[in-house]
């Protein structure tokens, strides 16, 4: 039986050396890796957003300046030239300028659209899940009713009645977005309020409002971060879809969704007009969602190590 001894020896070696120098560095590296993930996801998003919002200061042509003698120029990587790095659209407008200017509205609608859904949704869900009883019964029915209505059925009448503007768009995003958020937050709040430390807080005489906002709400932070970031992505996608249907942003304003929509009838002659904003939307939504996951890992104290 000499082989087992030989086989176990390296293992024993490893066990003997690892706990000493291993533990401290792995935990430290864990935090560093978490921070690094957040950084590497936030950085490209921040740079993209900065480029979009600084676009008026950059040496770019006016995004609405037409040049009908220079339409559908391909981007440089598809045989075009550097005068229009991302080509031009069917009216000869510079795609790079349009992409960066359009990003402004896309980012604004993404963030504001998430806020108008998550803030009321979280408060309503928290109140229902924490108070239970009649409040919960009413809110639950409202959530079910809201979720039963197709999005388009809410969005189109409002847009038709109120006209197309960013405020109407935010109203639609809020009206349609609060219910799924409230439903998740309500369920989470119900589970947190049954935890023992909440009973302990009642036992030391803490008030309901204090328990709700100071103790239950922070324990929902993880859920809220995830819901919030997902909602940013959803808002951007909804805006794009509405603009695609001609119900969103109107000329001369532009967003990635409306630029994408403007290329739909010329896909064969100028695929880049739709594809480039499409890639931008996909990349930003993906980054935002990954950032949500990374933030969750980084800022949950239970996952923090010292």
């Amino acid at each position: 039986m000499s082989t087992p001894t030989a086989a176990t020896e390296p293992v024993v070696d490893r066990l003997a050396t690892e706990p000493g120098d291993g533990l401290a560095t792995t935990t430290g590296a864990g935090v560093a890796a978490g921070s690094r993930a957040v950084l590497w996801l936030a950085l490209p998003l921040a740079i993209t957003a900065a480029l979009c919002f600084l676009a008026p200061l950059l040496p770019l042509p006016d995004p609405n300046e037409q040049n009908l003698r220079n339409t559908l120029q391909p981007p440089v990587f598809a045989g075009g030239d550097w005068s229009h790095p991302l080509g031009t659209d069917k009216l000869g407008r510079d795609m790079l300028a349009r992409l960066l200017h359009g990003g402004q509205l896309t980012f604004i609608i993404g963030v504001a659209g998430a806020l108008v859904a998550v803030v009321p949704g979280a408060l309503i869900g928290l109140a229902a899940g924490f108070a239970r009883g009649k409040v919960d019964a009413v809110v639950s029915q409202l959530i079910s009713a809201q979720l039963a209505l197709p999005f388009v059925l809410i969005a189109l009448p409002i847009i038709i009645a109120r006209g197309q503007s960013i405020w109407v768009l935010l109203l639609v995003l809020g009206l349609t977005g609060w219910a799924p958020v409230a439903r998740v937050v309500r369920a989470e709040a119900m589970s947190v309020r049954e935890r023992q430390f909440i009973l302990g807080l009642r036992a030391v005489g803490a008030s309901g409002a204090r328990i709700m906002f100071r103790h239950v709400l922070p324990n929902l932070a993880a859920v809220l971060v995830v819901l919030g970031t997902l909602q940013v992505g959803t808002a951007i996608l909804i805006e794009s879809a509405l603009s695609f249907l001609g119900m969103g942003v109107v000329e001369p304003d532009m967003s990635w969704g409306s630029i994408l929509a403007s290329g739909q009838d010329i896909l064969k002659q100028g695929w880049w007009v739709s594809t480039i904003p499409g890639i931008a939307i996909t990349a930003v939504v993906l980054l935002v969602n990954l950032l949500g996951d990374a933030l969750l890992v980084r800022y949950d104290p239970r996952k923090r190590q010292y």
Partner: protein
Amino acid sequence: MQQPALDIKDLRIEARTAGGVRPLVHGVSLRVDPGEIVGIVGESGSGKTTLMRSVIGLLDRNVRVTAGTVAVHGRTVIADGVDETRTVRGTEVGVVFQDATRSLNPLLKIRTQLREVLDRHRPDLDDAQMRTVMTEILERMLIRDVDRVLDSYPHQLSGGMCQRVAIAIALIADPALLLADECTTALDVTTQAEVVALLNELVHGSNVGLAFVTHDLALAADLCDRIAVMRDGRIVELRPTAELLADPRDEYTRDLLAAVPAWADLGDGNRPTSAPAAG
């Protein structure tokens, strides 16, 4: 004469369920004096936790007190369907729950959690005084590295340490009554012994009365001055520990004693603690 820390008289508690009204506690009377530890022993479902919850008014929604009175430190908090337990929570009554690691908010440092109770119950203190009170109370819990504990999150502390912090939170506003609901059940045996020793030292010789709820008769025998044995919502026997162990009158108490493995093997004459031999 000193006011009893807890005085329960003929308390009845019912639960309304889908199957109708089910009585949980039928006419229990119990007194805990200052500086005394009274054990409430019984199997699961005997109503001991319900009894304790009623004292702080934290019964489940479908459960309510139907008759009887509860007085804490001379102040009647439950009588004739009126429930004023809210006014004594945290001030006159402190509670320690079963699983210490889950009875603290995982997102806040111990310092913040202690501070919050002080902010509520001792708003007269300034920052420095509050720091002193927090340090002192943790030192009373026999915690050595107080500063490290104060700056820790619950998940960074052991179960026993969390339970000490929970006891500190329960005692920080200087209550007359401490309720401990299975507060050692989730701990390993050595830690359990430490917490029991701590409770023993904190209560005996102080003005705090302790109602110690447990299913573990051996543990209660170690710690309590008197033991109430509960079964099916009634106290079947309530006597000083030594008497109860030496000469259990109720058949159920005898069953419980027989169920403690070590004692059953030792035979009647060799029961631990100061129990005098039977007969």
